[in-house]
């Protein structure tokens, strides 16, 4: 186990190093001169060059990369050109919103998804099963921005139950969480259903039935307990990608989370912010995925020997 963990950790470091190089290179290829952006149209060339020297932008790319890496390791992501606040502070301010949103969507998605998946599997080939299959398919096929738009229109604009946009506490997160959970419900219900169907065929399920276990206990303690492992992995993956910023949903609802911040930074050519936020999002995503893998390898030891 320790060997496996060490191996995964080393490969994680390698991947993160690669990610930092990729982010650095991509961000530096973004066209437009960030210095000219900060100093405004009327800045003289001398002033711009002086600023570049001050920011270290006159150095060769490789020197700039190692400088960036060294500061990154020390927790310094630079300062946002848009707000003048450090990028790290911006992330700390905005991440709680993204985190809450991810939690609510995953809770809603897992509860409803698992429930629907179990019902569909138990009632296989009935009308209810077909309805759940279709609902899940629609959930994974509908564009999130479109769903969001109509949720806002009906529940915020027409009925006035929720704020239309921006962040004013819990109620602002309800509609975004519903939007995001539709996709999760679809994915989780489909996975639960097929995993449950595999389990239902097993001998131990017949044994449970033969020994007269009540049907609810059969479904939940014999069936779901065995069927849930791949579902938990899927839930983890969904959580990871939500934590990395539900970019579109945050934009449509104008929520000040990190996804929205990344888009804003990209459109304003705020290089340090783009660099820091994108790297942060990729790191979260990678670390969450690694955690899922490790948890999974505890549950299913065969994985470690692959």
């Amino acid at each position, binding site marked *: 186990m320790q060997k496996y963990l060490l191996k995964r950790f080393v490969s994680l470091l390698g991947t993160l190093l690669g990610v930092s190089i990729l982010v650095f290179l991509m961000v530096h290829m973004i066209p437009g001169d960030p210095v000219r952006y900060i100093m405004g149209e009327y800045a003289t060339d001398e002033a711009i060059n002086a600023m570049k020297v001050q920011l270290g932008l006159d150095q060769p790319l490789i020197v700039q990369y190692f400088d960036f890496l060294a500061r990154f390791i020390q927790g310094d992501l630079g300062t946002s050109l848009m707000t003048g606040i450090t990028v790290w502070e911006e992330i700390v301010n905005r991440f709680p919103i993204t985190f809450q949103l991810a939690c609510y969507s995953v809770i809603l998605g897992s509860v409803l998804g698992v429930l629907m998946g179990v019902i569909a599997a138990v009632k296989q080939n009935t009308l209810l099963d077909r309805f759940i299959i279709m609902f899940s398919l629609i959930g994974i096929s509908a564009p999130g921005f479109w769903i969001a738009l109509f949720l806002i229109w009906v529940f915020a604009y027409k009925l006035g139950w929720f704020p239309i946009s921006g962040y004013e506490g819990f109620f602002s997160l309800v509609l975004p969480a519903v939007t995001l959970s539709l996709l999760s419900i679809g994915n989780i219900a489909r996975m639960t259903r097929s995993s449950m169907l595999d389990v239902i065929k097993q001998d131990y399920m017949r044994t449970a039935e033969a020994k007269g276990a009540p049907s609810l206990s059969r479904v939940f303690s014999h069936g779901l307990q065995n069927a849930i492992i791949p579902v938990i992995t899927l839930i983890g993956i969904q959580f990871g990608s939500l934590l990395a910023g539900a*970019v579109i949903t945050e934009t449509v609802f104008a929520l000040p989370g990190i996804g929205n911040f990344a888009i804003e930074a990209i459109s304003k050519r705020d290089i340090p912010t*783009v660099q820091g936020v994108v790297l942060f*999002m990729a790191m979260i995503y990678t670390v969450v995925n690694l955690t899922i893998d490790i948890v999974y390898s505890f549950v299913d030891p065969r994985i470690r020997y692959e």
Partner: protein
Amino acid sequence: MNGKVTEWHVDTNPPIQLLAQEPKQVESQAYWILVWKRLSKNITAMGGLVILLLFIGGVVFASYIAPYPIDQMKFEDRLLAPSATHLLGTDDFGRDIFSRILHGGQISLMMGLISVTLATVVGITLGVIAGFYRKLDMFIMQVMDILMSFPALLLAIVIIAVLGAGLTNAMIAVAIAAIPSYVRVVRSAVLSIREKEYIEAVQALGIRDYKIISRHIIPNILSPIIVMTTLLFGESILSAAALSFLGLGAQPPAPEWGAMVFVGRTFLSQAWWMSLFPGLAIMLVVLAFNMLGDGLRDALDPKQN
């Protein structure tokens, strides 16, 4: 398959010639017939196929079917609700939405087609190389791991930031973001058949690698590739539409569906149909691909034999 085999035994052709060439062909034909038979019994998959064919037909023949030209503006017809004259209503310039959706489908479906083609070609190539030549495996998979460290849409958005907004760049970005999962699927399929005896046999015969790959490997990993490609189509259309909605892909006034939803959002309270119908079109097409993809997965699953 059984039916087919007895059929050619009854054939009047000389049996020796048959044994020399025919059997292989008959068998592979029968396999796809079998798959089709299984698929055609699947109501969901057939439903998806019908929706898809209707959309493709409507989009390809848009200039014949569409009742109005895409950019015919009429001030007095602004923001008309759906009616007999304008099936899906009109937009803020008095343009017919039904006609624009048909024409816009050419952009939306083409974005899907081109990015999937790009991802398929690169994904299969890299996946086969990684699975077949183990020396390059480490390197390729490391690069894929790095690409997979980004949520797909974020990667696409950053790539567009580098390349600039627009239709072509959006397609490239969607394709690049889709490549890693492709490579993974193809690679693991190649790995699972690489150690099979028949591959060892053709290698022992001294057959060149490219021939082994094209004649023996690719045909045997076709099933996961077909399923993956079908599902990826839906996903790519969805991502491309999302990018256009963010203003990073197709630009209004182009009648691309995501861009139409975006334009319509300002008129939601006066003309809900401006956003509703283009979004519905995206959902139906993606749904159709997912329905078909699910059906194909079941039909191509050897366990069902």
